[in-house]
């Protein structure tokens, strides 16, 4: 193994001085070799080092070893892009170009992804939505533009379809409307607002991101988390997964006009959110996960109440979802629509449900177990057709696994405290923290300065990996299948735009 690469565990801290820095040529070779061996690019970003120096940094997840790898190289105004050999670097390199005015030379598609001000907010921002959109020419070719404000109660984003008749040849996704400056707001923390910013950076993944943040802070400050807190975090995380998956299953039914399951699942999703509120008072789990543990405990009465609610939820969900999967008119729309082959999924670096529905067994809980998942294992649910059916069915498999997992945890909650006082982060450290949110892999990379404050806070939401997957899924599909394909990914706009 090359010394230019540092291996570390999920949620481990390292001294900044120990982070390797190599030449750009070595760095590129390292990344190419690791990706060829099956690694996944969890993050690729530029971080500021000492005065006017910038380091191009890669975080790779290596499933066979159950480890993460960190590599970096000094970068100037430009460097030869990775995207040509490593397609999963595509979105990351566009982000780098936009955030740091560093040019990945030879990048085939170098456009803004968020229309955010460059250079840590100091530079100018491109005007939102104004870019050289890909256009097709020819007889009977037409363009359909949708958004930023959509017809449903959803977040804003702009989609452009190049169509010939009903068939979509290309979909270009242009986001950035939700950009609030999350990463910049987190610098200088941890402060009073930090956890609230993290909990709202993608509000439907409050627990997933809060655990990723807390794990990073706990690593930086050497704070061991009590096992009861780990178990309760796991319960909350799986409740979040169940709520969102059931909501998605209902919405998928709605997108093919199958109203019974749409209506039942919409209601059952609310019941699951209410179960989270039993735990902490908030339907989205706000205020539950904090550095050092959790804020709310479950006594026997509340645990019993939660179990009763989950039994009702399981019964109702089974009837609603099985009805959908037993209806031929639904399956006719789901099957074969928006298929992503496993090879494509691997190349573009899909994560979460979308990756597993294409047959990749990619799941942070399994590959890089953290918290309760080190002790209690969940099987990885996969399907191989890569289409809308697979993305729906994997969700249903996961709902069932998560229900079982929660019941197991509630029956055997470890004794002891639910939190320990969190210490302040140590100075000049770096930590990488990955969790499996309901959409997929969440990655937080945090570096502290000489005073122990956040000098760098990098967030990679699963949506960041997957938006391009949606664009590919639409190729050669009917434009009327867009809502279905879109919902089958159900990606976050705010988690992407930050």
């Amino acid at each position, binding site marked *: 193994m090359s010394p230019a690469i540092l291996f570390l565990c999920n949620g481990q801290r390292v001294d900044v001085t120990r982070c390797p820095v190599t030449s750009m040529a070595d760095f590129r070779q390292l990344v190419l070799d690791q990706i060829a061996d099956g690694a996944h690019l969890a993050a690729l970003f530029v971080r500021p080092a000492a005065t006017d120096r910038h380091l191009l940094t890669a975080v790779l997840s290596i499933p066979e070893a159950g480890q993460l790898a960190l590599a970096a190289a000094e970068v100037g105004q430009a460097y030869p892009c990775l995207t040509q050999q490593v397609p999963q670097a595509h979105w990351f390199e566009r982000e780098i170009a936009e955030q740091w005015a560093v040019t990945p030379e030879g990048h085939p598609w170098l456009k803004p992804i968020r229309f955010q001000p460059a250079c840590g907010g100091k530079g100018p921002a491109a005007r939102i939505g104004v870019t050289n959109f890909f256009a097709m020419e020819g007889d009977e070719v037409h363009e359909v533009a949708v958004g930023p404000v959509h017809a449903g109660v*959803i977040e*804003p984003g702009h989609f452009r379809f190049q169509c010939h008749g009903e068939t979509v040849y290309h979909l270009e996704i242009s986001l950035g409307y939700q*950009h609030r400056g999350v990463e910049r707001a987190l610098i200088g923390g941890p402060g009073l*607002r930090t956890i609230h910013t993290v909990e709202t950076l993608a509000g439907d993944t409050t627990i997933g991101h809060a655990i990723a943040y807390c794990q990073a802070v706990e690593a930086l400050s050497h704070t061991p988390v009590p096992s009861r807190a780990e178990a309760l975090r796991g319960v909350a995380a799986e409740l979040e997964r169940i709520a969102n998956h059931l*909501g998605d299953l209902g919405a998928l039914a709605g997108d093919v006009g199958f109203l019974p399951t749409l209506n039942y699942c919409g*209601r059952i999703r609310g019941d699951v959110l209410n179960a989270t*509120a039993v735990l902490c*008072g908030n339907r989205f789990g706000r205020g539950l996960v904090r550095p050092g543990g959790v804020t709310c405990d479950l006594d026997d009465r509340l645990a019993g109440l939660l179990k009763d609610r989950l039994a009702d939820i399981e019964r109702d969900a089974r009837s*609603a979802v099985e009805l959908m999967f037993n209806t031929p008119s639904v399956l006719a729309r789901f099957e074969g629509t928006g298929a992503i082959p496993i090879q494509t999924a691997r190349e573009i670096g899909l994560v979460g449900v979308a990756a597993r529905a294409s047959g990749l067994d990619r799941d942070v809980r399994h590959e890089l177990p953290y918290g309760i998942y080190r002790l209690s294992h969940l099987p990885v649910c996969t399907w191989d057709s890569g289409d809308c059916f697979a993305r729906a069915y994997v969700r249903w498999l996961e709902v069932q696994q998560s229900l079982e997992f929660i019941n197991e945890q509630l029956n055997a909650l470890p004794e002891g405290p639910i939190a320990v006082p969190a210490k302040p982060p140590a100075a000049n450290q770096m930590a990488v923290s990955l969790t499996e949110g309901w959409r997929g892999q969440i990655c937080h990379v945090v570096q502290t300065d000489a005073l122990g404050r956040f000098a760098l806070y990098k967030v990679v939401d699963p949506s960041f990996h997957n938006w391009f997957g949606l664009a590919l899924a639409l190729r050669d599909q009917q434009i009327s299948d867009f809502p279905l394909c879109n919902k089958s990914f159900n990606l976050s706009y705010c988690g992407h*735009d930050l």
Partner: protein
Amino acid sequence: MLDVIRARWQQGYRTMKWPDGPIPPLPERFAGRPVMQGRDCPADCQRCVEVCPTAAVQIQATEGHRATRLDTGRCLFCRACEEACPKGQISFTQEYRLGAAKREDLIVERGCPVFAPCLVERARRYFGRSLKLREVSAGGCNACEADSNVLGTPAWDMGRFGVQFVASPRHADGLLVTGPVPENMREALLKTYHAVPSPKVVIAVGSCAISGGPYAGCREVHNGVDGLIPVDLYVPGCPPHPLTILASLLGLVGRRNWPQPRPQE
């Protein structure tokens, strides 16, 4: 077909009786509208102010007394002030009616009404029996959006009050805005607002839309809707409970027999 009927029978009738029947059960740990107890804060104590992430709590000195005031339009309902106060001056109740038609009515102090008035006479006159809304998420984190959207499900069924989300601003009587309004979303919000035919109403849902919430002061956002377009109804929370949103909407159009606030006893 038989399967569909069997599932329908199994799922039962789930639309809640409220507002004619009982209030749907709120979680025991629900943080509703806060109350400010006394007006005898110890001299020099600033604990609640110091722990508030959004500067929602203030201490006001009047006639030699020090008392707390809490701006629910900024509040994230994190209960940090409640936990920090050594005298138990601040407590979050189960009161779900948090909405208000006037921004200043979101500020809770000792002796203020248990809940604030939401009624907008103009809205009652024009939209009392039918209110169609276009939702605009402007930097919202998808929590306020989700808890607004859920009002369309059978459990809440806001359609029974004539309230509905519609696909186009051209079909709408008003906007329901969520999120702190990023600069990147400002133009789209304004265009959507102008596309709604007059007379129209604007409803700001969530602390982000009211004050910027956890993003208040960030250079990339506009600290909410105020100042960009006129707001008729504020619904605080992070996110507000669906019950809070629905109650505020019904209050806005003055649903028959809707209670009016009384001073705190």
